[in-house]
């Protein structure tokens, strides 16, 4: 232990030995390779979607309903109009149900429930909801609204199944944003004499809204791609219908039905529908990202 300047020999002692260097290089190589492997399916999925899907895109593909003709090559198999409109209708109603309830519960968790045992219980149950398989949501709604009422499938039942799926996402993302709002903002409003409800509606919610939009859009995007909850709640039909009390077609369900077809043209329709669905979902994701970049909170 001398304070002398290290000699060259002593410096060499600190050099990384060849075996350690090899191990380091190998590990780095493996990590990089893993990352590349992770991106391969993304590239392949997008490439195949574009290759197969763009081929079936045409004006009539979007403007006609699917027909039942799958055996006769001469007749038209139709497009996906009813599926697109059905998806939009079902998801819109699901959003109308899930977003206000979700934000309401999030507001309660942050403003009233806080860390109480009841709030912790609600948080736990919301987490439980997040983990429930989407097909089980379909079964729930089937039991309550199809068996329970003795009626048949309907668009609004599909919406309810999807809204159950969206709820936990909306609640958790809204809660995160609400927690970011500085307490001083609430306190100054309260100090000026504003009642709690006014503080929530005039101060807390308007401040949080831009941040919440991201989570909401992502939950809508998730719901739009779900097939399983719709199978025994809303589907299936071929016609365009604006009455949510009737059977309703949707993009995921139509793709699912077309996949099993032995007819090539029907499978191609599935590719075209899949590309349409992915484009819709990616647009929602893109908007969500842009909004979250704009908002100060998220």
């Amino acid at each position: 232990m001398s304070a002398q300047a290290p000699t060259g020999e002593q410096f060499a002692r600190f050099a990384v030995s060849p075996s350690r260097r090899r191990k380091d290089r190998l590990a780095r190589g493996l990590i990089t390779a893993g990352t590349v492997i992770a991106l391969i399916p993304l590239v392949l999925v997008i490439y195949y979607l574009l290759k197969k899907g763009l081929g079936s895109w045409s004006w009539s593909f979007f403007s006609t309903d699917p027909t039942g003709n799958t055996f006769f090559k001469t007749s038209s198999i139709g497009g996906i109009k009813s599926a697109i409109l059905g998806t939009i209708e079902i998801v819109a109603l699901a959003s109308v149900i899930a977003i206000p309830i979700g934000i309401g519960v999030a507001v309660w968790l942050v403003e009233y429930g806080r860390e109480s045992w009841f709030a912790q219980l609600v948080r736990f149950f919301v987490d439980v909801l997040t983990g429930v398989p989407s097909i089980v949501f379909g079964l729930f709604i089937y039991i309550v609204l199809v068996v329970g009422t003795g009626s048949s499938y309907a668009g609004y039942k599909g919406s309810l199944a999807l809204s159950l799926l969206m709820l936990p996402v909306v609640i958790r993302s809204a809660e995160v944003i609400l927690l970011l709002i500085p307490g001083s903002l609430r306190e100054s409003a309260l100090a000026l004499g504003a009642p709690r409800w006014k503080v929530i509606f005039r101060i807390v919610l308007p401040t949080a809204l831009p941040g919440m939009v991201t989570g909401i859009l992502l939950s809508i995007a998730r719901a739009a791609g779900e097939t399983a909850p719709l199978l025994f709640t809303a589907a299936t039909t071929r016609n365009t219908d604006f009455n949510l009390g009737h059977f309703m077609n949707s993009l995921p369900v139509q793709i699912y039905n077309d996949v099993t077809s032995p007819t090539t043209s029907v499978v191609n329709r599935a590719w075209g529908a899949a590309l349409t669905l992915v484009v819709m979902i990616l647009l929602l994701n893109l908007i969500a990202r842009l909004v979250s970049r704009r908002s100060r909170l998220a």
Partner: protein
Amino acid sequence: MPGGERSILERSPLARLPDRALKYGLTTLAGLILALIVYFFVRLVGEAHPAFAHQGVFGFVFGNDWNVSANKFGALPLVLGTLITSALALLIGVPIAVATALYANELCPLRLRGLLTVLVELLAAVPSVVYGLWGIFFLAPKLQGAEQWVADRLSFIPFIGGGTVTIPNYFVAGLILAIMILPIVSAIAREVMATVPADHKEAALGLGATRWEMIRTAVLPYCRAGIVGGAMLGLGRAIGETIAVTIVIGDAPQLGKHLFGQGYSLAAVIANEFGEATGLHRSALFAAGLVLFVLTLLVNALARVLVSRASRTRGSSSTLRAADEMQPIAEAVAGA
């Protein structure tokens, strides 16, 4: 303040009404969510009851005979199918997800990090039915040759080798699931890795550790619980995933003889058979849903505990543990 009179700062009972209404309204709303879940669960148990009464709970879960026309509902082939595909998904997906997270957090140039994160998250934006479509028309046929080669070479290992490879099979289902759980496992791994104190990493590097030794001694031990939790959340996803698996697993209600043969899963059987099911068959499918529900519940609860424990700030014990793990490096450097 004289008794009975209100202070001028106090609101009249009427003005306080909206406050009360909002508070109790929202509390009811939150309570309704609990009631709803409990209600669903009770109804599901009620609907599944006839099947359990027919088979016995044990006979349902472990009976190896799913024969609708003979009214036999032993769900073992389905349960095992779910477990096999999910296990495959974890085996393939988790190492790759952790590698992606490590690359993004520790190795990759700062400018690339955002792009990489977005790209991995894009995998989550693809709907499951699209993965199914892609899996059955692209992935499964392309892999068939390679799978057959592996099956022939490894024919001495039971369950993996030997049989004839079919296009839809357990392995393809597991592979698709691995792709689908990748984004969530990777996102959680990245989040947990971000909590590793820079001190630990710098200390490791300062002691002369290489990049990899730093990862192995400072990053990975610190994140172990969080990564395991993330993997469990991915497992929950994989177990519950329905449509993609239904399309690529082959829908054969017998226990598959080998990894590259057709099988079935709990979620897939519901999606496939529910439309035509009546009576006891339908009840058996509800029972399958219940088993699925309980399975995901257990896995997710365990995952939450692990993730929350990992993301909480660590006390001195972990610092000490990290110091312990770094000791070999320090010794290697000093005592060379």
